[in-house]
């Protein structure tokens, strides 16, 4: 049995036949291996989701284009959204959480290792089921019977009358299954953080990554389940003759929207809070200072978690709610800007007065800070209901949320990859390829998503497979599409870096970044048992205390 979590042995001379290695990976319950499985799975689906996006952008490169039919286009935007959210971003974040949380709190594994594996495989099969829809029905180029109802699957578009066949069912069941996997992960993270911390690690000494993943897990438990409930109701409608969303029988289309967005808004915080966690771990190390305002960061994250459950109907400002309801949701939406802004200021405060090292993880974090700031501000615009009555349902919203997810979350994820890859594999990623990746992403991202705000302002709705010429949208769409190709190249360079560095990267050692949390105390990759002896900690930065015994953090906390 190998003592390295990631050692992949070849058959023959090294001894183990590949079948046995495969069997080990498929039956693993080790949090590190499951973390890697989640991450690799997500990367594969990132490429698939990226192809779906590229197909859409080629279709929209000029008006009245016929690169794909309207039916295929509609399947593309549905699958792109669903895949990216549920089978790329969520799995990759769960992967990092699984890998890092036990190490950072001084534990040997997650609280429920078998539940962990169960959760992964549910998610994995959900994604496979969803993509199986491409090869059913009219086959891949007609995009099979992939769902085409948008990733929100609004009723009554999903009723049998408007979605005959099984395309909606692929969406419903794939997400129901992977949703249960996510709930399993949520349970595991919370139980791990509450029950398995090493001695001395009070909650107030826990790394922010552990705190933030705990808040994320709480949100998963409370808000992923409304989507599951709505999906069960949809299945009752479609297969048992129920009327939950049957407007002909007096049912309400709006209630689907409420249930969906009660899930859907907190979902985006489930996506972004772990990204905050990465930034909160990386920026201090590369600024050579502790995080500014640790207690405030914790409080702000918890506040964001709570407030996020009260803002959902800002996605529904145009559906005709009365003025009092609209006003309420404007208030809660504006309120959530306060703790979010506080976090940006705290990251700024961390950098201030530091000695910033501009290695690739930090470059991506700096990108995150500027871009997340901008995205938050367009969010404030959208939070003002009357302004939203113009902007919602248009390309302005599409630009806004891609700014958050790509400019914010994906950049933070890239930072996390460059920072923790050495720990996971024992080798450094190439810094020059990393910088090339970063600059290409900057160029491509801004070309696409800065410009994309403008067609929205000029009246271009979203989810349209083509558009009329002469409305001022033509050149803008062309530029947006060009940026997509540049981003694609950037991501491919990243993937090349991941693969190349695995074999040829510089050996990392335990602690290549001179960092301060527990995962850097063990070898790279860590042994399967993580810690030979479970450590006892006395401050938030146990390795700082060891490296600076004359000036330990414990004196100041």
């Amino acid at each position, binding site marked *: 049995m190998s003592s390295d979590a990631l050692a992949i042995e070849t058959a023959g001379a090294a001894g183990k036949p590949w079948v046995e290695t495969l069997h080990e990976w498929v039956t693993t319950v080790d949090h590190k291996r499951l973390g890697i499985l989640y991450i690799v799975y997500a990367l594969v689906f990132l490429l698939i989701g990226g192809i779906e996006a590229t197909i859409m952008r080629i279709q929209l490169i000029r008006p009245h284009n016929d690169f794909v039919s309207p039916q295929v286009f509609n399947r593309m935007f549905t699958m792109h959204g669903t895949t990216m959210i549920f089978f790329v971003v969520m799995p990759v974040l769960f992967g990092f959480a699984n890998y890092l949380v036990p190490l950072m709190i001084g534990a040997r594994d997650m609280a429920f290792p078998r539940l962990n594996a169960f959760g992964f495989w549910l998610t994995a099969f959900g994604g496979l089921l969803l993509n199986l829809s491409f090869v059913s029905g009219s086959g891949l180029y007609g995009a099979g019977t992939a769902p085409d109802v948008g990733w929100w699957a609004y009723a009554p578009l999903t009723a049998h009358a408007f979605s005959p066949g099984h395309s909606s069912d692929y969406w419903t069941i794939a997400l129901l299954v992977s949703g249960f996997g996510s709930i399993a992960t949520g349970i595991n993270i919370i139980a791990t953080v509450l*029950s*398995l911390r090493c001695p001395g690690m009070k909650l107030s000494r826990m790394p922010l990554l552990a705190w933030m993943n705990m808040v994320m897990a709480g949100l998963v438990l409370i808000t992923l*389940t*409304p989507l599951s409930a*709505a999906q069960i109701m949809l299945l009752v409608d479609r297969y048992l*003759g129920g*009327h939950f969303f049957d407007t002909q029988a*007096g049912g309400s289309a709006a209630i689907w929207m409420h249930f969906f967005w009660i899930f859907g808004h907190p979902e985006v915080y489930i996506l972004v809070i772990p990204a905050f966690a990465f930034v909160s771990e990386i920026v201090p190390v590369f600024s050579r200072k502790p995080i500014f305002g640790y207690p405030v960061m914790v409080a702000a994250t918890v506040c964001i978690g709570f407030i996020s459950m009260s803002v959902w109907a800002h996605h529904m400002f145009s559906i005709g709610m009365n003025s009092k309801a609209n006003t309420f949701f404007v208030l809660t939406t504006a309120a959530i800007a306060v703790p979010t802004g506080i976090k940006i200021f705290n990251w700024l405060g961390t950098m201030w007065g530091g000695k910033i090292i501009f290695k690739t993880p930090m470059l991506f974090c700096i990108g995150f800070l500027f871009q997340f700031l901008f995205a938050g501000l367009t969010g404030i615009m959208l939070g003002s209901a009357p302004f939203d009555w113009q902007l919602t349902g248009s390309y302005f919203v599409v630009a806004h949320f891609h700014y958050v997810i790509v400019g914010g979350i994906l950049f933070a994820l890239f930072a996390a990859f460059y920072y923790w890859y050495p720990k996971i594999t024992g080798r450094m990623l190439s810094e020059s390829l990393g910088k090339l990746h970063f600059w290409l992403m900057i160029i491509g991202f801004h070309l696409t998503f800065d410009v994309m705000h403008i067609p929205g302002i000029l009246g271009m709705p979203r989810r349209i497979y083509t558009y009329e010429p002469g409305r001022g949208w033509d050149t803008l769409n062309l530029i947006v599409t060009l940026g997509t190709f540049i981003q694609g190249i950037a991501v491919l360079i990243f993937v090349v870096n991941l693969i190349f560095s695995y074999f040829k990267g510089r050996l990392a050692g335990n*602690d290549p970044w001179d960092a301060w949390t527990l995962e850097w105390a063990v070898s790279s990759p860590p042994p399967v048992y993580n810690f030979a002896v479970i*450590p006892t900690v006395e401050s938030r930065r146990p390795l700082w205390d060891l490296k600076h015994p004359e000036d330990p953090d414990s004196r100041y906390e």
Partner: protein
Amino acid sequence: MSAITTPIVPTPAGWSLPYKGKVGMACLIIAESSIFTIFVVAYLFYLGKSLSGPTPREVLETPIFFTICLLSSSVTIHFASRSLEHGKRGAFLGLWLLTIVLGGLFLFGTGQEWHRLIYEHGLTISTNLFGTTYYSLVGLHGTHVIVGLILLTIVLLFGLAGRVGPEQSARVGVLSMYWHFVDAVWVVVFTVVYILGR
């Protein structure tokens, strides 16, 4: 960077963390509560909105006896757990069995009521909004009762085989938490369907 080894420091006195089983079950209960809340909201929202067909007032009969059965089963499982903690295996098994019987009676009562509603009043899940929301909500709860009974029976079988003792009382306590949750949900469902909804 030189390797840092974590020093061997004595464990601080009194370092104890909650039992992970209880934390995990509490999390599951939170998640399940969220699902039930959505079904309850749908039920309440659609009250009075059916375009046709039987109304709650016309067809529902308050299941008092079977509710008492289910709620008593919470009492019996509580004492069963306590007996197990104190090593009284006989009392544990007896009370545990009684819990299962009471739960089974509740399920029987639900089945009986559904039979009456379907065959005497023609109310099915597809009849109208009331039918859809009623069967979904009560059915979702019933499904959780069935799962609970299966788990309880597995523990009973292990218990009869002599493998359940005080060392397992923490795990049995976790299952008992689940059962209490199922009963608490019934209190809510009962209030919403049979009291508020008529």
